[in-house]
């Protein structure tokens, strides 16, 4: 590979980031434009999913089912889960990775830019299909985000075009989009790294994206297989999962969880990567045990494919199978624990700067450790059977997907916001956002644990009055959490329009993305960098690349 500098056509202006907002509504093949398209689109759906959550918590603030009809309530929790996972978590993480991976590995773009754009434009299609299910007779699917048969096969309206059908179609299209993305990311990371960017010079974030996308490649097709069979049962009268006609509903659960458990790692692995990027910057120390952190992501990828039956301990799973999956589930705590240990060791005696991305990352880490503890509890078969289908499970995974993943996502957005927009965000509003979100999230999700232990089942619109205390607390927390989004929106929109101009490297961070201007030029690098050092060389005072300017590590204080 040789470095060919971009030859300028005579009279041409140097390539710059898109100045025109219309670019973001076009079929652009620039990975940075696509990254922001993903992030903004998914945030819109985050608010939609959040609105559904507000209705759910509004219903649950009293023991009686008095706010909405029960069918509407069922539709709300189904759509809340589906939107938050398929339209917020996955696309926002893909958006972040789209923006960062080519910059971090020293590439001008993804391996397949057009495929990248096609994959993005499927996301709005998925969203429109799902929202359209409010307009069909019978309303949206009511079978929960996991769509277990026989509930998902009921089709009360008897029409071909029903909410469950649209749900399956949307999930299938989302799967196609994710597979396109995964092929693109894996190829980009394996084949497009800059000279000198060896495997163990890749930032930990790139390792986690690679691990997560490999999971998409082996896991998603299983869900697709199950979804195709469910669609045929629902629409064409086959009997794969219909117990009344000799089918096996538990087989669908296998298909579903073979993907949907590893999908949790698709979500959390890149967030682990975000932690690994943010902690060294704001602790001014190299990432502790970088190579071990990098490899532990791949170990998680492998192990995560062997744990899915722990969602089915109460689905007639034989004892020997429960034992095996209890063991593998607990084993996955080892590579995860290694990472937590490495982050704590990175922070230990560091010169901590509690900027907004740092407090979000710290808050997310705390909530992740909490969810890890309840996760280990749930891995134990006796505990799992006791709290199966109760709010304990709901509390556990909300600590993961909100506490760790969404808070980590906010950390990432604040951290790279100056790079993406060329503007600084407002620190005060950022701190307000953090404290509202952190208090709101804990007030919302912690009460779910005692509720679950007391025996309150999930997915109910009414409950026994003995559960009222914790439910009111959770609902108030949820409303606080909903409000926390306001300072975020005000901050980001306002700062993007009028914020202080950001320097190339506002955090004095080490990484290829901080070498280029903020926002980076089209095609990222004038000359492809030649990497000569490991990442995270904080305090080592060594150059990162052989060509080009040095990082502004000392210049911009504050």
């Amino acid at each position, binding site marked *: *590979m*040789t470095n*060919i500098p*971009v*030859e*300028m*056509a005579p009279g*041409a202006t*140097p*390539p710059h980031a*898109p100045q*025109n907002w*219309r*670019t973001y*509504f*076009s*079929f*652009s*093949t*620039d990975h940075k434009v696509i990254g922001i398209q993903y992030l903004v689109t998914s945030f819109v759906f985050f608010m939609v999913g959040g609105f559904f959550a507000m209705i759910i918590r509004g219903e649950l603030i009293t023991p009686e089912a008095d706010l909405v009809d029960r069918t509407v309530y069922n539709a709300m929790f189904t759509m809340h889960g589906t939107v938050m996972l398929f339209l917020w978590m996955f696309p926002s993480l893909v958006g972040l990775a789209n923006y960062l991976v080519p910059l971090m590995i020293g590439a*001008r*773009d993804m*391996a*397949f830019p057009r495929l990248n754009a096609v994959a993005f434009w499927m996301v709005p299609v998925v969203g429109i299909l799902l929202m359209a299910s409010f307009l069909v007779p019978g309303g949206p699917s009511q079978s929960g985000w996991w769509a277990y048969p026989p509930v998902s096969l009921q089709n009360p309206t008897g029409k071909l075009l029903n909410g469950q059908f649209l749900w399956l179609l949307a999930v299938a299209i989302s799967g196609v989009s994710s*597979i396109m993305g*995964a*092929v*693109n990311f*894996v*190829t980009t990371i*394996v*084949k*497009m790294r800059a000279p000198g960017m060896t495997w163990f010079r890749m930032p930990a974030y790139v390792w986690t994206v690679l691990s997560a996308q490999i999971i998409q*490649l*082996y*896991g*998603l*097709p*299983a869900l*697709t*297989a*199950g979804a*195709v*069979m469910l669609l*045929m049962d629902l629409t*064409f*009268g*086959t*009997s*794969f999962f219909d117990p009344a*006609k*000799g*089918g*096996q509903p538990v*087989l669908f659960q296998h*298909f579903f969880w*073979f993907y949907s458990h590893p999908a949790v790692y698709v979500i959390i692995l890149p967030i682990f990567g975000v932690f690994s990027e943010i902690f060294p910057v704001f602790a001014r120390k190299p990432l502790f045990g970088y190579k071990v952190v990098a490899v532990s992501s791949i170990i998680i990828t492998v192990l995560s494919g062997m744990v899915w039956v722990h969602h089915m301990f109460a689905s007639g799973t034989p004892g020997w199978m429960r034992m095996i999956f209890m063991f593998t589930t607990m084993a996955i705590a080892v590579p995860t624990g290694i990472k937590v240990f490495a982050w704590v060791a990175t922070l230990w005696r560091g010169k901590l700067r509690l900027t907004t991305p740092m407090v979000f990352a710290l808050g997310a880490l705390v909530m992740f450790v909490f969810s890890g503890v309840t996760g280990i509890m749930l891995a134990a078969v006796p505990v799992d059977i006791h709290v199966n289908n109760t709010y304990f499970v709901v509390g556990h995974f909300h600590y993961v997907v909100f506490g760790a993943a969404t808070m980590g996502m906010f950390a990432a957005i604040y951290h790279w916001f100056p790079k993406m927009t060329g503007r600084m965000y407002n620190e005060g509003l950022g701190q307000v956002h953090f404290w509202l979100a952190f208090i709101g999230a804990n007030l919302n999700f912690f009460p779910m644990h005692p509720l679950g232990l007391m025996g309150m089942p999930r997915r109910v619109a009414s409950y026994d009055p003995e559960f009222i205390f914790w439910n009111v607390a959770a609902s108030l927390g949820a409303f606080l959490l909903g409000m926390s989004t306001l300072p975020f929106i005000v901050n980001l929109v306002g700062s993007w329009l009028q914020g202080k101009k950001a320097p190339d490297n506002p955090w004095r961070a080490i990484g290829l993305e901080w070498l280029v201007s903020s926002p980076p030029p*089209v*095609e990222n690098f004038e000359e*492809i960098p030649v990497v000569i050092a490991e990442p995270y060389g904080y305090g080592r005072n060594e150059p990162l690349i052989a060509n080009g300017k040095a990082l502004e590590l000392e210049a911009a204080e504050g």
Partner: protein
Amino acid sequence: MDTQLNTSPVQEASHHAVAHEHDAEGNSMFGFIVFLLSESVIFLGFFGGYIIYKLTSTNWLPEGVSGLETREPLINTIVLVSSSFVIYVAERFLHDKKLWGFRLFLITTMAMGIYFLLGQAKEWSELPFGFTSGVFGGTFYLLTGFHGLHVMTGILLMTIMLLRSFIPHNYDNGEFGIKATSLFWHFVDVIWIILFLLLYVWQ
């Protein structure tokens, strides 16, 4: 749509540079192999489902059905598997820049694929059970149908490759298209062999 930004001379020049810095054909082939590996998991899922149904169902075969006829499907299998060798010969011809040999062998491969599909259609029309006849009927039509869809895709890809061979300078940027088509065809073959063993041999 704002396409002005995408076609500035600077960007086009550098796109050109990207193509040479990173071996674009190698990337495409790598990506395609990754995709096929992922695609094969869908088949693995269907195969797994079939095996579980077959081992655990109490009434496996629908009433009045004693099993599947194997003679004609075997002939079909032989035709499809041999077509993998034919497309390989076509690829060699293209490698030696002998376009007419390439086209001849590609058309032969397509003919063999179409023969396979016609045989499949004939078998379907004569079967005494439908896809709603229990899980046996369902899995049978699902597996053969999903595979048949892949055979059709393969034939479509070959048609495109055949037409493109008439475009001058089509192979100046490498032969990724035909390499990928050929790999896809081998993939479809291997899937069929497993499918044949599961559906017809293991009765």
